């Protein structure tokens, strides 16, 4: 959804500039109050938590947790300011937020994008190779930019082989109607709207072609992860139940109904969005939480994002990727 990954460079800069103040404020105000506070926002892998909330599964599991609904950028601001204990975000944004000073550890993966992120091209363009020398619009420094780079690399090109046009993700449907732009990068539902805006346009590359390009999860304040480890473990356990409930064809309609209500649309509209997201059970998460290279490893994927962020000047110093990932919660028996 467009709310996911909307931070632009300006916002990042501001957050960093204001962070010393934020840190000061949180040192004044944060005496860990009993309920865990988690900020979540409009992305299927995170809206999924709504099922557990509505069903009362946290109470059953004996963990006192309060989920707060945010706009994605706002949720990261609140986390950076120390106002919430955890936030749902992408592994890439965890690095960006951490580079700004608010370190986190990702204790559980919720999903990876499985088709929701896409490069949409006009009718004449049959494959990624056809983009050579043409104008392609992406929001610079964000995941779709990374997706495009990945797509180009696979056919032996670099992002200098196409002419990049920097545009806001929300505006991609209109950008695609421009004569000389042949393709745009966007995630759902913007990518879907882009296809509606230009009949005949179609995805030529999606996150399903490179599963693991973007991982989503719950990132926790390291201090809280340590101090309230038992509570966080219980929360992670609930996740398995959520995934099972959504994936089970028998209960899926009920789950989709709950999720659609959270997003303010109809279940029918919601279903395709869910399909573009691969939810990860704890077992599936464990397989990804292993050190390795490439996108099949959370570590490998995060390293690639780190390199990309450095190259794009999102932050200056490379991040210690290992410190952002803690497999022990997901792997706990």
């Amino acid at each position, binding site marked *: *959804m*467009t*709310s996911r990954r909307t931070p632009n460079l300006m*916002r990042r800069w*501001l*957050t960093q500039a*204001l962070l010393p*103040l*934020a840190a000061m*404020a*949180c040192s004044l*105000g944060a005496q860990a109050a009993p309920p865990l506070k988690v*900020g979540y*926002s*409009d992305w299927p892998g995170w809206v999924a938590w*709504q099922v557990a909330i*509505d069903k009362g599964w946290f109470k059953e599991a004996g963990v006192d947790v309060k989920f*707060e*609904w*945010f*706009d994605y*950028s*706002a949720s990261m*601001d*609140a986390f*950076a*300011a*120390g*106002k*919430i204990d955890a936030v749902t975000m992408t592994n890439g944004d965890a690095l960006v937020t951490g580079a700004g000073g608010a370190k986190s550890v990702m204790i559980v993966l919720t999903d990876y994008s499985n088709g929701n992120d896409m490069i949409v091209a006009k009718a004449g363009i049959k494959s990624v190779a056809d983009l050579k020398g043409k104008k392609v619009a992406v929001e610079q420094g964000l995941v779709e930019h990374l997706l495009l780079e990945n797509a180009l690399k696979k056919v032996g090109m670099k992002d200098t082989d196409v002419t990049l046009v920097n545009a806001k993700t929300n505006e991609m449907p209109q950008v695609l109607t421009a004569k000389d732009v042949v393709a745009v990068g966007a995630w759902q*539902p913007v990518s879907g*709207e882009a296809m*509606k805006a230009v*009949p*005949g346009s*179609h995805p030529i590359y999606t996150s399903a072609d490179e599963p693991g390009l973007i991982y989503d999860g719950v990132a926790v304040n390291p201090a809280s992860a340590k101090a309230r480890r038992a509570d966080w473990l219980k929360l992670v356990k609930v996740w398995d139940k959520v995934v099972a409930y959504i994936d089970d064809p028998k209960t899926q309609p009920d789950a989709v*109904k*709950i999720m*659609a*209500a*959270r*997003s*303010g*649309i109809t279940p029918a*509209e919601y279903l395709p969005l869910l399909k573009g997201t691969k939810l990860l059970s704890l077992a599936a998460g464990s397989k990804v939480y292993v050190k390795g290279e490439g996108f099949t490893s959370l570590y490998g994927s995060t390293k690639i994002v780190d390199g990309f962020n450095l190259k794009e000047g999102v932050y200056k110093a490379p991040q210690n990727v290992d410190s952002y990932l803690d497999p022990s919660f997901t792997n706990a028996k």
Partner: protein
Amino acid sequence: MIARKLGSFLLPLLVWSLVSYLPFIWHPKVQVEAPGGVDYFLPGMLVDREEFAQQSADMRQQGLALPTGVPANPIYLPAPHQVAKALYTAFTTEPEQKDAPWLHESLWQSIQIILWGFLLSSAIGVPLGIVCGTYQSVGRLSEPFIEFFRYLPAPAFGALAVAVLGIYDGPKIAIIVIGTFFQQVLIIANTTRKLEATLIEAARTLGTRGVRLITRVVLPGILPDLYRDQRILLGWAWTYLIVAELIGTSSGITFFITQQARYQHFENVYAAMLIIGVIGFGSDLLLGRLGHFLFPWDRTRDRT
């Protein structure tokens, strides 16, 4: 008077209705009913009229089934009855999500944010503005700084506001305050300066001095104008709501708008905008009437 004001809405409404219901006026799109042989057409999809004609011609040539469709306006221009229906359902249907607020509750939440923001801003801004306008020395000392500050965009303070005030209503109210306060001081200082100097002099020759010059002369002297300024500033505060409610936890009416816009449910967006408009316009109309009643001596009131 009110009837005349409402009258000015009739023309736009008429234009909107004509554009919505008379297909030959605009309707640049075709809404697909049956895709026929066109591989990428889907029922309900909006395509350009030319595109639809082109595809129909292609299908005829290839001897495939023709697509069918009806003229339609772009998705961002819903018809009046769709908006009216959205308005009705928004207030009458229970929210899908458990424990989620009803629309009128979201609305009330937004109104409270505005009112608190405006009250806090006024509590400091009005007295400060009057003092700045009355005493040149104070004005010269503080106004350049305020002048500078008012150019800083209120939304830029979002992250800071959250850091200091938490994630609930505090930072939202703070954004309204930041957006209103600086303008308020300058505008009210200016209004105060425009008070006829001889009124103050007359009061001084009658034995008034010190604080009573402000409470007994300046304040009543500018009150009708101050009231008008406050009405304008209140409208201003509303425009910051959309930014304020995206800070911290998502809530209120403008969150509903951005959420619905994201999924291109424009009839809901228009309905919510309509509600805000009605509340803003209605309250201003009400305050205007109240002004007539409160300031019987105010001669400029006939113009408002």
